């Protein structure tokens, strides 16, 4: 089948501002949008720039706006979006080239959440693992699935309006550690999120939940962090 794909193009060395280019390629309805981009790059225009790595929804490289909504190009089939496709970079982060945005501010916010296990207590008597019950593990299971693709943060109107908001992805990461019974720094993370640019900036627009390719219930997770902040209960 014939697929028409309109792609946002921006070359920082030549262009003052971005523009769109339309390509027509021969593809299959079961192709993924990423395949179509590869076809364009391979057959029509080798200068097209986009990120990809795993091509299987694991690495989180290829979040982009497909027909106006954030998706992973490698998890979006042509038959689900139609043969007329518009592809643009995600919003809220600076475009470096074509579909590639500057992810630094995104990862800076991620790092602010202390995204690692903090536990200063002595190891258990056998000197081996810190054990955790299946229930305690289940408490934060959902937010362990994040692949840091930024689809959520760049779909958030609060983030568009105010780039200082840490954004849903950072809060998802904080959630993953705050509710982990083996971790001891929940308080520090909540203190960071109690700042002006923390959870208070979430106005429950739900865009993040809709955008997440891992189907994490992000707004719910943010709600749980808000509740933990208010009640002090971490279970």
């Amino acid at each position, binding site marked *: 089948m014939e697929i028409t794909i309109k792609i946002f193009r921006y070359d920082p060395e030549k262009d003052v501002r971005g523009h769109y280019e339309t390509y027509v390629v021969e593809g299959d309805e079961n192709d993924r949008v990423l395949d179509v981009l590869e076809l364009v790059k391979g057959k029509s225009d080798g200068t097209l720039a986009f990120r990809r790595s795993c091509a299987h929804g694991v690495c989180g490289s290829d979040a982009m706006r497909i027909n106006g909504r954030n998706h992973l190009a490698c998890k979006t089939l042509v038959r689900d979006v139609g043969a007329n496709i518009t592809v643009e970079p995600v919003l809220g982060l600076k475009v470096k080239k074509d579909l590639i945005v500057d992810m630094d501010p995104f990862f800076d916010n991620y790092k602010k959440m202390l995204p690692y296990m903090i536990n200063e207590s002595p190891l258990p008597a056998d000197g081996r693992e810190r*054990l*955790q*019950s299946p*229930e*305690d593990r289940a408490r934060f299971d959902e937010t362990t699935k994040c692949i840091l693709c930024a689809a959520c943060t760049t779909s958030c109107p*609060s983030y568009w*309006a*105010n*780039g*200082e908001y840490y954004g849903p992805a950072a809060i998802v990461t904080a959630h993953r550690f705050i509710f982990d*019974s083996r971790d001891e720094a*929940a*308080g520090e993370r*909540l*203190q*960071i*999120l*109690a*700042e*002006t640019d*923390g959870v*208070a900036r979430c106005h429950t627009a739900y865009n993040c939940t809709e955008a997440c390719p891992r189907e994490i219930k992000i707004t719910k997770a943010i709600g749980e962090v808000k509740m*933990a*902040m*208010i009640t*002090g*209960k*971490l*279970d």
Partner: protein
Amino acid sequence: MTTKRTLSIKQRGLTNFEAVMWIFTRLSALAIYGLILVGLIGALIMGARNQMNFADVMRWAFMPNVTHVQSTDLQDLNPWASPFWKLTASALLLVAVAHGVHGLVVIADDYIAGAGARKFIRFLSIVMMISMSGIGLYLIWTS
């Protein structure tokens, strides 16, 4: 071995003024609903059912000040001017102004990014909050 973990207010950062205001904004919204309900029920008890139209009842509910019901068919305005209603109106005024001004500050943050400018907006907001509350209280207690 399910652990119970809790954190004190200080440990979870709720000593941060902005965080406290964020919670205040949520609670004050509930308080506003509650006070409006008080005004509504009070009006119905005091005879609004037969002597007032819907618009006037709503006007009273949103600000239970006696001047808001002067032009209605009410026979006796005295109960509507009691200290109870002045206190209710004052509470509604203070809570609503603080709620609204804080909401404006949060919206302003979306457009004003500089630290100095934000401080200035916060200062202006506090001035606005105090003066609006003052004028409102003056009107309630002298009418």
